[in-house]
């Protein structure tokens, strides 16, 4: 007969407030098989674990049930404690009487009854637990970083510094990401390129880092420690080795109607182009849609003028397959598009621009060489209006429900830069709340108001109309309760930011969880912010949620440390709750093999001894290293031969019986 120990946790008052823990412990004592039951204030504490270990030794417990918080929280803690007392860790079951009971039911009578029911279910299941031993799988000592912005670069540099190989895959022709488009950065106002380019060069020249630009992830398979990724290196049509980056081809190229993505479409670029001066690699790319040679077969001027003969029209996409131990997502963000926000007249008034476009306008390498001029008539604006929260904090389907976090700071930055360079320009910022928390952030914003005389008006902008040669901004002044219509020569919209477009595609490829706003979901919002719940996948930068550059760099470093923690291991313990096939009852129909997402099931002819009769049968085999324990095969198998250790048919049926 099993000797089960049941430990009911108070969790301080989290459970004890609405669940009578003593009565739960008392009522399970009568269940056959329960040899010991007690409640304790904090089971996960040292004291709690010692109580359990002592009970295991004193009562010779063969099974343990802990009624406490979610297994996703402390299952590992209690398993380790049991193992230290000599009990196989997989003979421990958790009844979730906190998140699923005490926290969601207010009535003590009702919550206690439910806690008892959940305890009974866990006891019924634990009776059928079998001792399991984790297998081992090797760890490939190489990391993959998807995304070459500041987040990806910082993570890659930190991993490479620790001596491990890292591959960066960047979709655009050059690393640098959104940061390379910025002019100055807050709160110190240093020039973005000045602090970014050294990191780009360091990454490009680091012997442990390989950079794939103008490349995308085609396919990812495998699991933690044993990922295999296929990288599609899109054809640049230019030889990276021979090209010296002189730029003559871009000058001479006749096709100049494509809009420059780097400059947010504010100026055109030639079909063969280097996105920006400090691009790394400093090698152009032929945009085949706009290249006359590719579209019509004529032209070919770039090949003629190229002193190094580096143009290679016949270059093809190249697929590179590579094994990795860990993958870091650093896919960054994009501003949302203004199509659904007609009231701001963004599409019709050239002088209504987004903040990222404003960055390009004020950037010395930008389309206007840094001169702040109106896009409509090229004149210097006399007054500029900045509008906060355009699409952010919007619970309707038009916008994003969340606060994009960085706009208040860069609005203040923009306002200060304008007033510093052109003190005579009137600058007004319309806001709902100015959110500038953090080290020296609020001082930064107040400097804009107190030293530079930027006018901050609490009230949202409702509509922007054209009037003669300038714009009319219709806003409200919530404090005074008045309606305003402010003339302005230029309006800058602080648009909401959203994750990069291919985030969801990557999430499916990596089976990383992703939320309804397309941000990758972290394993735990407070305790594990840089890891995805999927083992071996890590999150760096805005792909996990809106954040500014300081936080991105901090989180990028944290992600790198998590990767190092993984790569430093030679062996990884694998999940022992995997499928297993009962050779006696397997009919060899291999329905299981058809539903296995990991290709972990194969078939083999075996001599099976059935009631003394030896028969040669086709039997399904589970490769325990590949199996991740989803259980699809157990339901596809009609005869029940395929079962899942840790969640077997009998165990789940026992839980159902105990509950109903």
């Amino acid at each position: 007969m099993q000797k089960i120990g049941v430990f009911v946790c108070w969790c301080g008052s989290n459970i004890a407030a609405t669940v009578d823990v003593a009565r739960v412990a008392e009522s399970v004592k009568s269940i056959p098989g329960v040899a010991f039951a007690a409640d304790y204030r904090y089971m996960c504490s040292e004291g709690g674990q010692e109580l359990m270990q002592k009970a295991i030794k004193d009562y010779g417990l063969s099974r343990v049930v802990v009624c406490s918080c979610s297994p996703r929280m402390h299952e590992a803690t209690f398993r380790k404690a049991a193992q230290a007392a000599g009990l196989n860790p997989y003979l421990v079951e958790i009844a979730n009487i906190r998140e699923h009971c005490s926290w969601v039911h207010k009535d003590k009578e009702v919550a206690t009854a439910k806690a008892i029911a959940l305890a009974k279910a866990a006891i019924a299941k634990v009776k059928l637990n079998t001792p399991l031993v984790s297998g081992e799988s090797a760890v490939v000592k190489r990391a993959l970083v998807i995304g070459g912005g500041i987040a990806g670069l910082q993570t890659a540099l930190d991993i490479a510094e620790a001596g491990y190989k890292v591959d960066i895959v960047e979709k655009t022709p050059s690393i640098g990401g959104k940061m390379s488009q910025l002019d100055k950065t807050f709160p110190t106002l240093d020039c973005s390129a000045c602090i970014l380019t050294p990191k780009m060069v360091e990454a490009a020249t680091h012997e442990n880092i390989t950079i794939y630009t103008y490349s995308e992830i085609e396919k990812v398979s495998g699991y933690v420690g044993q990922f295999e990724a296929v990288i599609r290196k899109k054809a640049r049509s230019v030889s990276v080795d021979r090209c010296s980056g002189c730029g003559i081809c871009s000058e001479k190229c006749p096709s100049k109607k494509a809009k420059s993505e780097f400059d947010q479409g504010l100026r055109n670029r030639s079909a063969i182009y280097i996105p920006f001066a400090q691009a790394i690699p400093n090698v152009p790319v032929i945009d085949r849609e706009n290249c006359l040679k590719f579209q019509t077969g004529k032209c070919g001027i770039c090949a003629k003028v190229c002193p190094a003969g580096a143009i290679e029209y016949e270059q093809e996409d190249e697929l590179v397959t590579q094994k990795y131990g860990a993958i870091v997502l650093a896919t960054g963000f994009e501003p949302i598009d203004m199509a659904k926000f007609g009231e701001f007249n963004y599409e019709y008034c050239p002088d209504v621009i987004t903040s990222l476009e404003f960055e390009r306008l004020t950037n010395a390498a930008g389309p206007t060489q840094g001169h702040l001029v109106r896009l409509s008539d090229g004149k210097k604006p006399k007054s500029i209006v900045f509008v906060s929260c355009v699409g952010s904090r919007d619970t309707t389907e038009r916008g994003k429900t969340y606060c994009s976090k960085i706009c208040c700071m860069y609005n203040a930055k923009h306002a200060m830069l304008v007033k510093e360079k052109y003190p005579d320009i009137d600058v007004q910022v319309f806001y709902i709340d100015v959110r500038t928390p953090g080290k020296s952030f609020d001082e930064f914003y107040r400097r804009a108001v107190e030293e530079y005389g930027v006018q901050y008006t609490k009230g949202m902008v409702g509509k922007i109309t054209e009037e003669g040669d300038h714009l009319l901004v219709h806003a409200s002044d919530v404090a005074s309760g008045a309606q305003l219509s402010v003339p302005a020569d230029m309006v800058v919209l602080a648009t909401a930011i959203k994750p990069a477009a291919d985030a969801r595609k990557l999430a499916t490829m990596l089976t990383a969880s992703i939320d309804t706003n397309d941000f990758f979901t972290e394993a735990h919002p407070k305790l594990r912010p840089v890891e995805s719940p999927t083992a071996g996948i890590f999150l760096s930068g805005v792909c996990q949620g809106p954040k500014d550059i300081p936080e991105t760099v901090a989180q990028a470093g944290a992600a790198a440390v998590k990767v190092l923690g993984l790569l430093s291991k030679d062996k990884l313990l694998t999940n022992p709750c995997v499928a297993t096939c009962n050779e006696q009852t397997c009919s060899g129909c291999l329905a299981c093999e058809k539903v296995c997402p990991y290709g972990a099931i194969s078939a083999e002819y075996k001599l099976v001894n059935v009631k003394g009769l030896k028969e040669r049968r086709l039997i399904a085999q589970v490769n325990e290293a590949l199996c991740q324990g989803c259980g699809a095969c157990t339901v596809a198998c009609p005869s029940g031969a395929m079962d899942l250790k840790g969640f077997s048919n009998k165990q789940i049926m026992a839980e159902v019986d105990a509950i109903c």
Partner: protein
Amino acid sequence: MQKIEQLIKEKARDLLAAGQVTSVIAWQKGEMFYDNAPGYFDNTEELDALVYNAFCAANLSKYLIANTKKDEKTAVFLKPCDTYSLNQLIKDRRVQREQVLVIGIPCAGMVDINKVKAQGLKGIIGITEDGDNLTVETAYGTKQVARAEVLLNKCLACKGSAYAVSDETIGEPMAVKHAPYDRFAVVKELESLSPQERFAFWQEELSKCIRCNACRDICPACSCEQCLFDNPESPLAGKANNNSAEEQLFHIIRAYHVAGRCTDCGECSRVCPQGIRLDLLNRKFIKDINEFYGDYQAGADADTNAPLLSFDVDDVEPGAATKGRE
């Protein structure tokens, strides 16, 4: 079909004599003329017991499972509808294709003796076929009966004279003449009833079940080495007649297991001693699969993936998909 029987006997004789196969599976006389049983013939002498007439409804494909375990070659005579079941068994790897010589034989639709009796005929001695009619000899004289009126239910849903799989064929394909028939008619009718009426219907039907397992043993899609309900280790194997799931839900679970693999050969309803309309459960699943995931005929070939073992990214959502008046 007399002519066909003769051809079958000759074929079997040649195959056995030439040693091309070690045994032949066909039908043999049963106790009553209308009760022919499946038969193994492994030498030519036994062949005169071989019959092929209007009462050979049994689907022989399931008998190949045991044979193909022994490394012998077996010949089997299959009607067009039986060949679908063989394809399904091959797909489920229960039958090794290369160890079977499949000979397709035509069928004009098998007769249901109860329907003949239901025409008020008593003391039937024998039935012979001529064209579209049957001459029934009884102790009180002979009577002509139109074959189309006394066909087995399963033959009303005949899948046509084409063979889903065959190495050779004998005779010319025959058409099964019967009134137009929608195999889902009763399913649709049941779906239109209220939940209470539907529940009453099924309570009535399933209460007749005496758990003889005839339906499971005849079903070519139910081909597990050891059935879930016979395996003491399985949580469902409660043979005792108490409230175990097995008693109450045997038929639903079995229908679920064969969903997407049932070729609608109708044998389960034919062999059920209590006459339970088990085919309705299977046809409900087939109708749903056709509606939700596109027409699918199990056994039409031996390689397309079964509907429940594949998926489509934009399948219909479960809630939206149920029919019937609520």
